[in-house]
């Protein structure tokens, strides 16, 4: 299933073109393309250039720090990490069933974050490509351009995101890196005043959710054939699913389907994820390459996130989103929708679902309940999985008798899409860039393909152009702390005092 553009036979004879840094994505990465003398593209790679080592440095920390510590992986969807870690620590403290109040407050927080994250991605980051065209002027192709040319759309996006952030603030304590979820439950419920504040605008928010789906549908259908073909790849898809096959982003089993919609596995207990998923390492990226073990590395890679979730689920429990899901599935003609740009469409359907689900929860008396916590005997192993805005997120921790972490494994959502993003840019490179002199608008098409996945590459930006031959890190007293040298051969040497 993988294309042949991953590795060129003779890279040294090829011209290197680099897109660095990737922009209007959340986090950082770069793309390298290798062209031969006839401008044919021989290699295309998305490199993730960041490494932070969370799995190591949280060792030695007490388990109760995990929900607030590990969320610092990501400032865009900290709630995902906050809640996945909280779910894992629920297991550690022997909680098998949260109180209704705790579960509903966490769900509210999660729907709020999925709403804000999807709004941010679509309106602030991607709408310039979709509204102005992939080849729009580089100085205009951003949210400021949208504010100037389509102020109503921009304002709607800003306010949708604001509402999601406010839901997070009230359930988690603050908008970014909150503290609401704790092992075994939550530390606060909502009071009447807070509920009234959120209820005041929810009617408008649901309406804007509907408008957002209609907007992306209108754009998608304007050039249907092109949007269906651009960066399209046939893949397996994996997502979490509710007990009855319903769309659920907070809790459930794992479901994987093949490119034709056939079941690979279903309702898998996520605490056994390591029996199903393995991760490969490639030397040119810090991000690993997960695959379904039963299918092997070559054929077992898959996609996660909105496209996988909407394709995989049997139904949405809310009426407006369900209606939109049916229309979406029609576009696949009996197969899962494989168009990469359909991620945008699926994402807006999810945004609409979140607005409806928040509206329902705000009417539920449990969200102002007083039973917040429920704990049992300390256990040594905890696994927490949920659907983050960008896809299935795995947190796995092991602790000793004193509650100190001694092993951890994290598979973040975007990692699941690593191979798929690489395959999508190779499709675009082969179909639209091959044989052409690479210009900025053409290179933006590569980024458009990556943006569809809403990757959260997190952390560490990088320089443009050539890598320097020598880097010396000095402190204020001009003393050399670290020195790196890169030779023409690519060999790197380090000396430090």
């Amino acid at each position, binding site marked *: 299933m993988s294309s042949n553009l991953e590795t060129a036979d003779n890279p040294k004879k090829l011209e290197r073109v680099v897109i660095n840094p990737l*922009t*209007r*994505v959340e*986090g*950082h990465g770069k793309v*390298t393309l290798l062209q031969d003398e006839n401008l044919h593209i021989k290699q295309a*790679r998305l490199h993730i*250039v960041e*490494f*932070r*080592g969370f*799995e*190591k*440095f949280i*060792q030695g920390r007490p388990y109760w720090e995990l929900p607030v510590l590990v969320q*610092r992986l*990501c*400032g*865009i969807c900290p709630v995902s990490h906050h809640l996945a870690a909280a779910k894992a620590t629920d297991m550690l403290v022997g909680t098998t069933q949260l109180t209704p109040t705790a579960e509903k407050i966490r769900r509210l927080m999660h729907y709020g974050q999925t709403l804000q994250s999807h709004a*941010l991605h679509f309106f*602030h*980051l991607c709408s310039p490509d979709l509204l102005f065209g992939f080849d729009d002027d*580089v100085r205009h192709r*951003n*949210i*400021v351009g949208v*504010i100037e040319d389509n102020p109503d759309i*921009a304002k709607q996006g800003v*306010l949708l995101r604001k509402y999601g*952030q406010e839901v997070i603030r009230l359930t988690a304590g*603050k*908008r*970014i*890196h909150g503290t609401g979820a704790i092992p075994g439950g939550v530390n606060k419920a909502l009071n009447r005043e807070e509920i009234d504040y959120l209820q005041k605008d929810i009617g408008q928010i649901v309406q804007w959710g509907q408008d957002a789906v209609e907007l992306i549908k209108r754009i998608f259908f304007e050039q249907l054939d092109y949007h269906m073909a651009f960066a399209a790849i046939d893949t397996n898809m994996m997502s979490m699913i509710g007990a009855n096959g319903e769309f659920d982003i907070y809790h459930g089993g794992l479901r994987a389907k093949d490119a034709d919609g056939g079941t690979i596995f279903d309702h898998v207990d996520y605490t056994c994820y390591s029996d199903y*998923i*393995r*991760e*490969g*390492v*490639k*030397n*040119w*990226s*810090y991000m*690993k390459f997960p695959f379904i073990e039963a299918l092997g590395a070559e054929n077992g890679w898959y996609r996660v996130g909105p496209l996988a979730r909407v394709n995989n689920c049997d139904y949405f429990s809310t009426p407006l989103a369900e209606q939109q899901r049916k229309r979406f599935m029609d576009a696949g003609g009996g197969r899962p929708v494989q168009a990469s740009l359909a991620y945008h469409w699926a994402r807006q359907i999810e945004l609409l679902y979140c607005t409806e689900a928040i509206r329902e929860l705000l009417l539920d008396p449990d969200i102002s309940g007083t039973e917040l916590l429920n704990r049992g005997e300390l256990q040594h192993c905890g696994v927490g999985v949920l659907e983050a805005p960008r896809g299935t997120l795995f947190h*796995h921790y092991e602790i000793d008798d004193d509650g100190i972490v001694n092993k951890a494994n994290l598979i973040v959502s975007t990692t699941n899409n690593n191979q798929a993003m690489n395959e999508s840019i190779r499709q675009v490179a082969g179909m639209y860039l091959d044989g052409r002199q690479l210009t900025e608008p053409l290179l*933006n098409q590569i980024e458009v393909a990556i943006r569809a996945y809403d990757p959260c590459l*997190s*952390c*560490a*930006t*990088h320089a443009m*152009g050539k*890598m320097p031959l020598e880097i010396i*890190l000095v*402190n*204020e007293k001009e003393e050399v*702390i670290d020195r*790196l040298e890169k030779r023409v051969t690519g060999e790197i040497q380090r000396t*430090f005092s």
Partner: protein
Amino acid sequence: MTDKVRVATATLCGCFGCHMSLLDIDERILELVQLVEFDRSPITDIKTVGDCDIGLIEGGVANAENVEVLRDFRKHCKVLVAIGACAVNGGIPAMRNAFELRECLDESYINGIGVANPAIPNDPEIPLLLNKVHPIHEVVNIDHFLPGCPPSADAIWTFLTGLIEGRPVSFPYKQIHYD
């Protein structure tokens, strides 16, 4: 157009949360774009930093490219600001300083749960990691420090509007009150 203040932003080794907190000014962004023009930033497609009035840096310094980007910002920005815990003192990523870099890499790529083909990535295309994660003032001179994880949108707004209007910045207590 040209009398707008030019602002560039970058994330080094951080989580993007400070940029998100900047966007948390919500509809005030409509006012902000009347005052400033964005140069290189994750929210524009400008890839190289030009001459700017203000540079905002999120994140600490963890690899060779972080050093290069930071120096480039220092060269092009009249005022350079460290935003958030990671830029100010290394933050959570600097927790790896308690370990050898090799141990951290081994944990992820060699001994990790479910790793199919243990190997440490080493291609020249990926930046070389530094042994330790550093706050940005250890690499270049910094004009202002705005702490917080992340600083709240209101704190960023108070700071930016003060800086742009050229008056001393003073924060209400709530804006410098943390978790």
